[in-house]
Structure formats: C-alpha cells, structure tokens
C-alpha cells in the first residue's frame, strides 16, 4: 500500500508539473503583455517599477519567466496580485478559500445525507410510481440551469418572502466594529464542521465494542448529537455567536441551490448503484437467511452500492476548492470561484494562475485520497 501511494505521489508530481507548464503557457498566450500592464499600474511609483519587475520575474525572456515561475511555486510564492496590489496572491487565496470551503462542504454533506437514503429507498421500490416520480425529479434538479435556479430561489425567498434580502455573505451594518474578522469566523466554522465530521467518522471506531447493530447505530447518533450540542453551546457562549449566525444566515440560499443540484446527482447514482447490487446472489442469500427487509436493504445492498457514491462525493469535494463559479457569482459569494473569474476577466494573471495552481494540486491529491479510501472500504481491493 505504501509503495502504491509513493508511486502515485510521484505521478502527481509529474502531472502537476505539466499542469503548471500548461497554465503558464496559456496565460502567456493571453492578449496583451501582462508584464507591461503591471508596470503601467498607476499605483506603483515609477522608481519602484523596475525593481519590482525584477523581483516578480517579469523581465527576461519567456524561458526565464517560466523558470522563475516554477521556482516560485515550489517555494510557495505565488506572486502578487494585480487587482489587490500590494497583497500577495497567497494572502488573497487564504482569505477567500474558507468561504468556499464552508459553503460547499455543508452543501455536499447535506446533499449526500439526503441523496443517499432517498436513492437507497427508491431503488428498493423499483417500478412503482414513486420510483418514476423521484427519478424524474432527481434528473430535473440535476440538469436545471444553475442561473435559473438561483434566480428562482432569489425570487421566491428575497422578493416574495422577504427573507435573505441582501446578497453577499454578511450584513455590513452588523459588522461595524466586530471583535473578530469575518476571516476568523469562517475559519472557526470550517473547523467546527471538520471536527463534527471527524467525530462522526470516529464514532464508527469508538462504538465497535457494541455487538448488536441497532444499539450501535443509536450510540453513534448519540455521540454526534452530543458533539453538535457542545459545538452549539461553545458558539453561543463565545460572544461571537451572533456574527457566526449572520454568516450562516447568508449561506442559506447558496447552500440550498448547491444542495438541490448535487442531491439530484447523488440520489440518481445511489439508485443506479443499488439496482446493480440488488441482482446479486448474496442478496437472495440474505433473504433466504430470514433477515428483515430493512436489514437486507441497508446492511447488504446499500453498503456495496455505497462505493461508487463515495467516489462521486470525494470528487465533488474538488469543488470545495475551485468553487462553483456560477453559484458564487449569482449569490455574490466572494469565494474561490468568483475570485478566479474576476481575476481572469480583469487579467490579474498572478491571481488567476495562483488559483489554478492551488486548485490543481488539491484536486490531484484528492483523487489519491479517493483511491486509498476505496481500498479501505472494499476489501477486495488491495494495492
């Protein structure tokens, strides 16, 4: 197994390297010479221009710039943003990333929590009316035009119902003199979610002593509920709870949009997966053993059908980093997606390239995580 991981990491290096080169070449090919553009930026005093140009590696031939760029990336220096001068690209990314992470993490988890049981349940009822209705609805949500969904949601919730009036991720009037920055709140929220996730995963391990499946499941749920309760109390007493709530309030609509679309996909995938598994002989054996329907469906069929769904979920996690550009734009949610789009449109190449680089390495690593996770879940696979 370790050897496999090592081999994959080596492959990731090569792929990442090629990716960097590709990104660099594309941005070199962009209209306009970005070296001159930066230099012409009026914010920079003329004396400093030449020195700055050299520091940023904008002088010299294309080959020199390339080497400079690659070296920088591998030392963690992603350059300085044009739009947000003099902030560094990495600084901007650090600020925007948690916003995207929180949004898509919550939405993906919700979509999975809804799609998995529904898909499992509806596959068991193959051929009935409910099956068709749910399937068609799932496809509809999966293929709906995202801006249309956003507009409809905004229309219904903002205009008609009057909730969620403002876009963006916070209400400026509430944040006039906050004790903490929005950045900190986002980071803490991300930490909370990750912590709860870890608790849920760990609860499988912690409750393994309990023999019977039914009490064990309740023990797990109890642990997670306990975690949620503690988190809630901690936030409430921390003094910054109201700020966190403001952000969560603004998160409602974008999360709803992403969840609806994502849930359709997860549900369909789970259903298809289950239908494949149901035909297997070991399901007939389970029935012959006299097991109750629910146990056959949940313990035997769903467990095996889960595998492709997990893969799908983990690949969807890639969006957590790159952000749904469309969603973030529609809801004015200043996350990675929106940042990237603006950077490309405004020709802020360091920022755009930085976003791509960051996303690239994370997606490649995530794919590796998927493969390793799959090996853990399916005992037939070993590396």
């Amino acid at each position, binding site marked *: 197994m370790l050897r496999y991981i090592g081999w994959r990491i080596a*492959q990731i290096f*090569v*792929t990442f390297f090629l990716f960097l080169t590709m990104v660099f070449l594309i941005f070199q090919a*962009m209209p306009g010479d970005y070296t001159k553009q930066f230099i012409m930026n009026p914010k920079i005093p003329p004396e400093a221009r030449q020195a700055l140009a050299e520091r940023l590696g904008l002088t010299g031939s294309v080959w020199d710039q390339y080497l400079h760029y690659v070296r920088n990336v591998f030392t963690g220096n992603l350059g300085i943003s044009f739009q947000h001068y003099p902030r560094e690209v990495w600084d901007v990314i650090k600020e925007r990333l948690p916003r995207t992470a929180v949004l898509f993490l919550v939405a993906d988890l919700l979509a999975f929590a809804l799609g998995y049981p529904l898909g499992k349940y509806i596959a068991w009822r193959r051929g009935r009316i409910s099956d068709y209705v749910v399937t068609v609805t799932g496809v509809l949500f999966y*293929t709906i035009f995202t*801006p249309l969904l956003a507009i409809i949601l905004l229309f219904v919730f903002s*205009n008609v119902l009057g909730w969620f009036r403002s876009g963006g991720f916070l209400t400026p009037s509430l944040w006039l003199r906050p004790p903490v920055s929005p950045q900190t709140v986002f980071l803490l929220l991300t930490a909370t979610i990750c912590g709860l996730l870890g608790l849920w995963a760990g609860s499988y391990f912690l409750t393994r002593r309990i023999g019977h499946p039914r009490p064990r499941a309740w023990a797990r749920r109890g642990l997670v509920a306990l975690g949620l309760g503690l988190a809630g109390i901690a936030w409430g007493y921390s003094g910054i709870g109201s700020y966190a709530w403001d952000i969560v309030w603004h998160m409602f609509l974008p999360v709803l949009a992403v969840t609806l679309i994502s849930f359709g996909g997860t549900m369909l995938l789970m259903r*298809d997966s289950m*239908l494949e598994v149901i035909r297997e002989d070991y399901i007939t054996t389970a029935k012959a053993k006299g097991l109750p329907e629910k146990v056959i469906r949940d313990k035997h069929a769903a467990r095996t059908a889960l595998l492709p769904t997990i893969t799908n979920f983990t690949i969807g996690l890639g969006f957590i980093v790159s952000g749904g550009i469309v969603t973030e734009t529609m809801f004015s949610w200043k996350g990675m997606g929106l940042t990237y789009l603006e950077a490309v449109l405004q020709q802020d190449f360091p920022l755009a390239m930085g976003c791509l680089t960051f996303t690239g390495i994370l997606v490649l690593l995530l794919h590796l995580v998927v493969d390793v996770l799959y090996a853990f879940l399916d005992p037939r696979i070993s590396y």
Partner: protein
Amino acid sequence: MLISEKVKIEPLWKIRLRLAIRSLRRNWALFWESRIGPLGLGIILFFVLLMIAHPILMATVWDPRVYDPIVGFDRALVGRHPAPPSWAHPLGTDPIGRDVLSQLMWSTRSEFALGVTSALITVVIGTLIGAICAYFGGVIDTIFMRLADLVMLFPFIALLMVLRSVIHLDLWRLALVMGILSGFGGITITLKAQALTVKVKPYIEAAKVAGGSAFHIIRHHIIPNIMPLSFLYMMFNVTGAVFTEAVLSYFGLLDIRMSWGIMIHTAESAGYLGAFGQYWWLWAPPGAAITLLCFAFYLVGRGLDTVVNPRLRKR
C-alpha cells in the same frame, strides 16, 4: 436431408438488414418500457417542432423587420421595450425590441447543432482512445490516462479567452473546441473500462489466433461492442455541451450572436434581472428552455441505459 438444403440462401446484406431491424425493434420496446426515455424523446420532439416552425412563421405570419431574432425591432412599442407578453408578442420583447419567442425558436437550431456536434466529436474521440488504451495497455494507457487527468483540471475559461482573442469564437468553433477537449477527458476512462471487459472475452483471443491485426480487432470487435455505451454517453454529453454553452454565454464569454444563454445575458447586462418578477419573460423562457433540453437528453440517456445495461431493467 442435409441441413444446407433446408436453409434458404440469402445475400449477406439482406440478412444483416433483417437482424438489424429485429434488434432495433427489440431495443425500441425496451426503451419504451423505461418510461422516462420516451418522455425525454417527446420533449426533444417538441423542440424539433419549434425549430421547424420558426422559418415557416417567418415566411408567412411574421414580418421579418419586426420578428427577426437578431435585428428585428418593433417600432410600435418603441420606448416600452422590454414589453410584457401580448397577442403580437406571446413572450414579450427584449430590451432592444426583439421578439422573445422568435429568439427562443431560432436559438433551438443552434443549441441542437452545438450539442449534437460537440457530443459526437467527444464520443468519437473517447471511443477510439478508450479502445486503443484498453487493447494496448502499458505506456500508451498511462499517457492517455494522465492526459485525461490534465484535461479535467484544464482552465477552460482561460483557454476560451485566449482563443477568443485569436479567432472569432462562434458556434461551430466552440463545438469543436468543447468536443475535442471533452473527448480526451473523463469519457476515455469510462469507455476504456468498458473496452477492457470486451478485451478479455474469448472471441478476442480467437481473433488474434486467427491472425487478426490490432487494427482489425479494434475496429471490428472492440469498438462495435462499446458503441452502445458510447451512444449512451453521447446523450449525457449533449446535456453537458448545451449547459456549458449557456453558462458561458450568460457570462458573456462567447461571440455567438444569439442563443438562450445570450438572451439572459442581454437581459442582465441591460440591468433587468434585478427585479425578477417584473421582467420574468426575459429570463424564465430561455432558462426553462435550457433546462428542458438538458433534461430531455439526460432522460433519453437514462432510458438508453436500461437498454444497454440489462441489470437496470424492470425484468
């Protein structure tokens, strides 16, 4: 009596035709049984009707000066554009005086063209590469799989901007770009997996022993056996292509003159999307059209899935 005396000798093409018709009929019956497949097909048919109806309307009832989707203008309502739906304009007019229904119907043609072309290119490339990777394995396989990884990470928007500065990014060129890019991406992985299940079948071994070259085996054995799956994925690719074009047009990143995405983009850049309820005819019809066409092709894809994959059938 010898067996050969009992059998009628027919030309090969006739036999092939008969078998093809029989399997077509059987597959159609299965497709029909899936229920959702025909639903999708029905919706597609509806759009085809829209597509056909437009030139007829333009030639007969509609005055081209007013109803042309791109350069039409209704003088009668000047100053009140975008006008709400009326008898003259069933879906109203857009901010620069053009009839919305006419735009909707006219764009259907380009959406179909874009979707089908792009999907076709993707699937052809994907099938070829999948078959080749499965058959040869080794270095060739690794190269294409890593290429697929890169393609999936590809900064599509950045590429479009580069291309746009160099060439006029119209519908056909966009279809080509999208088709080629997707063709090397995720679809190769899926089709390669399918081709691998074909490769290990005994008849491939038999063909090799009989002296079949790699080209022959790939062309006559592997590809025909993965074509049903390719055809299936083509449907999903049409959905993806139409969706992508709509999103890109909505963000104003393309040079197409008129499409459903452009319609919403026009409305937004003219500032009419702020008050959703008031100018609903500017965003609801094109948005619904995009959704419905993607929805329809996806349903057809799922319907075909029950034909191709026996396990998903009812019985």
